[in-house]
């Protein structure tokens, strides 16, 4: 029984992965310059000038 269900189970997972891969490839690039720098980590890119 388990052996008979294994093939559809694997096909379902492979199909899901294929759909997500297509979605990633077709989705627009992430705009990293949109909005404010969200994390404190991003501030590490700031150039500090002595006052």
């Amino acid at each position, binding site marked *: 029984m388990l052996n008979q269900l294994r093939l559809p189970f694997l096909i379902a997972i492979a199909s899901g992965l294929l759909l997500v891969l297509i979605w990633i490839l077709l989705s627009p690039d992430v705009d990293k310059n949109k909005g404010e720098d969200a994390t404190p980590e991003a501030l590490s*890119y700031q150039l500090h000038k002595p006052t």
Partner: protein
Amino acid sequence: LLEDAPVKQIIYKSEGLMKFSQIDNPRELLKDNTVWLGAIAIGVMAINLAILWKVGDEAHLGMSVLFWLPVGSMIWEKREELNLKSDRIGSFIGAVLIGLFLFTIVSMPARIAGQRDTYDPFLRLMPFLSGLGIALIASGIQGLKQYKPELIILFFLGIPKVIITDLLNIDISPITAKFSAFMLHYVGYTTYLRDSVFIDLPGGSVKVYSGCSGMESMTYLLGLSVVCLLMFPLERFHQRIHKILIVTFAVITGFLVNLVRVALMAILAASSNIEAFDYWHEGDGSLIFGMIAVGIFGLFYMFLLKQDEVQPQDPVES
């Protein structure tokens, strides 16, 4: 043996597990579990790489290729010997892990958008978790040990960085700043270390944040040393102490190369050369330092492999 061969083939076919060498009819491929498991493995690898490319994390994309290739190669080499019988619990946990992987990937671009830093701990966990998921689906809990070296490689692809930076909150940027300032001082620059993380030079200064502390470089080199030790095991230097020394050398190389990078950033900041600063900090120049660190360790390991080939001479009898 010849009489036994068709019987074996029937057994494999009845279990949906054909050996690759026994596949002769292309239509049979679609009924074969092995082929679908291979497709899932390729799909997971492609998604892991595609999402990094999409979010613009080029450095981690390059390192991921460097880690996924040996994993694929090692699995391909032992494909005939793998036991591909799974169990219910293994298949269920594997499916949950793959589901979690897909959910995280789909939500990733929205989370990354608007940030200049593309680092996300989930992206670093995903190669190992998705690899574990495939292994469980393919061979169940009992068969996990077959994939030990591959899972170790995927573990070192991103998880040490997450453990050190996100779970333990260890920040070595004061140490990096101190050593960089020290290095600049001995090269002849007038430097001043302020608040542990500011390196002041006449004309400008830089602040060393955790993202620039070198932890990334150190964890990559740590992983690369593990890949080398698993892919190209050494015969003469096989003891635990040798492995510890090789891994330590890799981590120190990552730290030292980053020190030079931070020192260069400070010099460029002091000269107010913003274009050059951006190039070496965020542009293609930033990738060059990673390549230098990988190159130094690669040469060191090649030297060890050469030494490994040289047989110790027999003692001369007098």
